[in-house]
């Protein structure tokens, strides 16, 4: 299995670095190949909502803006698993990773498709964690929101501490 880990370069903390290294070790320990994509807040232009990627035949599904996600989308079909790792902001991914999830064309992962959302933050409140898990778990199966025809696995985890990181990786190990 070929996995991709997308991380927020601008939101590094001891918690996120510990989580990233543990997830990396876990995925590679299972014998999967892993690529890490670090994105910063100015690497991805937010989705404009123009829908030209869906409605303009000449675009062949491509975004009108050639940013880091557009480059990723050209080869996203090579991956079997995409894991989004980013800070939680009020109960959803903060803007940098959210811009990636808004634009990533996971529908192109036709070989097999597993999506994982891992949110983190030292001061995340319980209600925010519950909302974060709801956003991804409640709608799993139609997680690729635009393209509901393809069922997919979408798992969500949240970590508030280094101890949580171990628990997240233990659960993740059962999923992988």
């Amino acid at each position, binding site marked *: 299995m070929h996995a991709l880990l997308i991380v927020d370069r601008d939101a590094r903390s001891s918690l996120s670095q510990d989580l990233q290294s543990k997830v990396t070790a876990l995925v590679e320990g299972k014998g999967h190949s892993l690529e890490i994509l670090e994105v910063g*807040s*100015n690497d*991805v*232009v*937010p*989705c*404009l*909502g*123009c829908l030209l990627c*869906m*409605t303009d035949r000449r675009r*062949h*599904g491509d975004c009108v803006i050639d940013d880091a996600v557009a480059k990723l989308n050209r080869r996203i*079909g090579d991956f079997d698993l995409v894991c989004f790792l980013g800070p939680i*902001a*009020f*109960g*959803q*991914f*903060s*803007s*940098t990773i*959210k*811009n990636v*999830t*808004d634009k990533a*064309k996971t*529908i*192109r992962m*036709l070989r097999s498709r597993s999506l994982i959302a891992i949110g983190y933050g030292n001061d995340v*409140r319980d*209600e*925010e964690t*519950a*909302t974060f898990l*709801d*956003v*991804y778990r*409640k*709608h799993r199966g139609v997680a690729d*929101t*635009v*393209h*509901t*025809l*393809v069922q997919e696995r979408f798992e969500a985890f949240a970590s508030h501490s280094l101890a949580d990181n171990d628990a997240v990786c233990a659960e993740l190990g059962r999923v992988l």
Partner: protein
Amino acid sequence: MTGGPAGLLRVCLVNGSLRGPKASSNHFLACLERFLDPAKIEVAHLAVRAKLPNGYPEETLARLSAADAVVLAFPLFSYCLPGATIRLLEEWAHYADAHPAAKHTRVYVLVNCGYADPKVNDEAIHVVRNFCARLGLEWRFAIEIGCGPAVLMLAPIDLRLRRALQSMAADLQTTAPEAKDNVYLWPLLPRILMDTIRQSLDRKALREAIRRQSGA
């Protein structure tokens, strides 16, 4: 409420869509504004931006922080707020941390999604409520709209939309203490029609993905 110049209530209408004036969110805000009394309310229009190498101008964040009420209008992206909208809230939160104020700004939401069922918007509302709890803002209520463009298309004859916007406008101009229940608006068009359009777009995207994969 403290009020702005001449005792006017300061209300910020925030277009959380990057489609700008063409956005459904912007049209819903315009519909709401028709019910606001200019003799009582001073309206400021704000909009999210795509490229922010240095973040939002301090003036924008100060205006949000000083408002008596903020109406956030945005489209639903992946069951929550679009990246551009959450960026504005992040920066507002940072600004509020650095400039604490005893203000109890009232917050309203107008959210629309591509699904016929407006309850799909619920998680996005939870995100905004969490944001309000963090900043000590006063959550009021949301109008959750299923298939925004379809609702807008029939807006002249949609009395439920009119009543919902009127109730938001009335609430903006009062000091009622309790938050109200969210209002759900389904499109007047038959659901089967909405689902057919949506599935047609889904199939088209899937065909395109398969074509790309096979290198055809």
